[in-house]
């Protein structure tokens, strides 16, 4: 069995397999909307490789982190724009 990591997405605890990135973890937590665009539209990941900036979330209080480029670490707290 792969190790699991416990993180929080919008205050709710989620267990994810190790090597899971934050974008995948947010989706696993049931969220489709990662951020709101400048005109308020819901957005989710597009490029999966750090180019498009659509998957930005707040990680441990740091806003505008590209969730696809960050691996989950135990205890990480993630917030989407709809939190």
């Amino acid at each position, binding site marked *: 069995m792969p190790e699991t990591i416990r993180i929080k997405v919008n205050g709710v605890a989620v267990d*994810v*397999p190790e*090597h*899971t*990135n934050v*974008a*995948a*973890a947010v*989706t*696993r937590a049931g969220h*489709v*909307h*990662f951020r709101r*665009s*400048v*005109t308020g*539209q*819901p*957005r*989710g*990941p*597009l*490029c*999966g*490789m*750090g*180019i*498009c*900036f*659509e998957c*930005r979330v707040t990680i441990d209080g*740091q806003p*505008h*982190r590209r969730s*696809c*480029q*960050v*691996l989950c670490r135990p205890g990480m707290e993630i917030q989407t724009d709809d939190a």
Partner: protein
Amino acid sequence: MTPERQFDVLVVGAGPAGLAAACCAAESGRRVGVVDDNPDLGGQIWRGERVHPHHKEAGAWLQRVRTASLDFLPGMQVIGQNGPGRLLAETADGACELRFERLILAPGARERFLPFPGWTLPGVLGAGGLQAMVKGGLPIEGRRVVVAGSGPLLLAVAAYLRTRGAKASLIAEQAAWSALLPFGLALLRTQPDKTRQALALRWALRGVPYRTDCWPMRADGDGKLASVTLTNGRRTWSVPCDYLACGFGLVPNLELPLLMGCDVRAGFVAVDEMQQTSVNGVYGAGEVTGIGGLDKSLTEGQIAGYAATGQPAKARRLVAARKRSQRFAATLNTAFALRDELRHVAAPDTLVCRCEDVSYDRVRRHESWRAAKLQTRCGMGPCQGRVCGAATEFLFGWPTTSVRPPIYPTALANFLESPANPASLA
């Protein structure tokens, strides 16, 4: 004080080209560093291979990486230049200066996305984008996926997603059957290995229709994707799906080469026989010199690694292999050229710039990329035009080859004190 790292050879990009360059450079005994903004090495095509090995050739190269004496700097992004021989980079913890004698640029490519109504809906991703997400842990089992756009990547992505339990319902390739046929025949004649790969992919995808002359018209859904409407130019039909994986070929990541002053010709970094760019001591390898896939990247990376460390004889032995992979790349790019109809899929209110939410109608009134940027903020958001620049280049024929530091958004603290900030030179 910004921390510093000193290398004889610094490689930017840890995909196949960068890793091959780094391994060959390290053979000379010089101090070699590899920087990449991704959390792990492998780039896009070998993403996840270190943890979950699948690809034999990747395994062999990663083994070589492990035994070579390399400093790997993951999760670090180059954002500017701090004068000759110095790059400014950052991690989540702050800024860092990377010093080098020789620099090898292997920043790879990104997907080209084209706007169509509904393409901003969550659930619409790049083709490589969805694959990267699944490799990153996104559950795909039982999900209905339509793969669309253009290029051999579509087949590879669909086959991968299927092995992970996705229900791939359709692969929609915009290229015409009449354009792909000569490509297939040339493959059969000159590239038996690639023919075998293509046949293996097709076998893995048995039961999944591969439609040529077919492209997405719109995506629909309430807050997230529910269906995609496709056309073959004569009729349109809708396919319900959970994900649309859609990319229209690849475009090189030119931001850093442009910032360093490297000449760009016909959209790619110009290099000489030894992969050296127009800037002395700066080399380019992989997709950034021309979209050509894995073999070309590995060969160019090795040449650059040898050439940058005074091993020209070893570099020259690879020149014939490079020629073969470049010829293959040329056939590939002709076969998958984008059709004109794709320029007319966006509706007036379809967003072109997803960072600043600028519509097609507002962008098309302008005569150049620069004018559109100044008047509408198209391309002025966090992605700095990496998505809409490649789209407007195709839609309106606007060249977008100008960059300014920092080439990625960064915290002011990382930039203010740096010589990479033009204002700090005053």
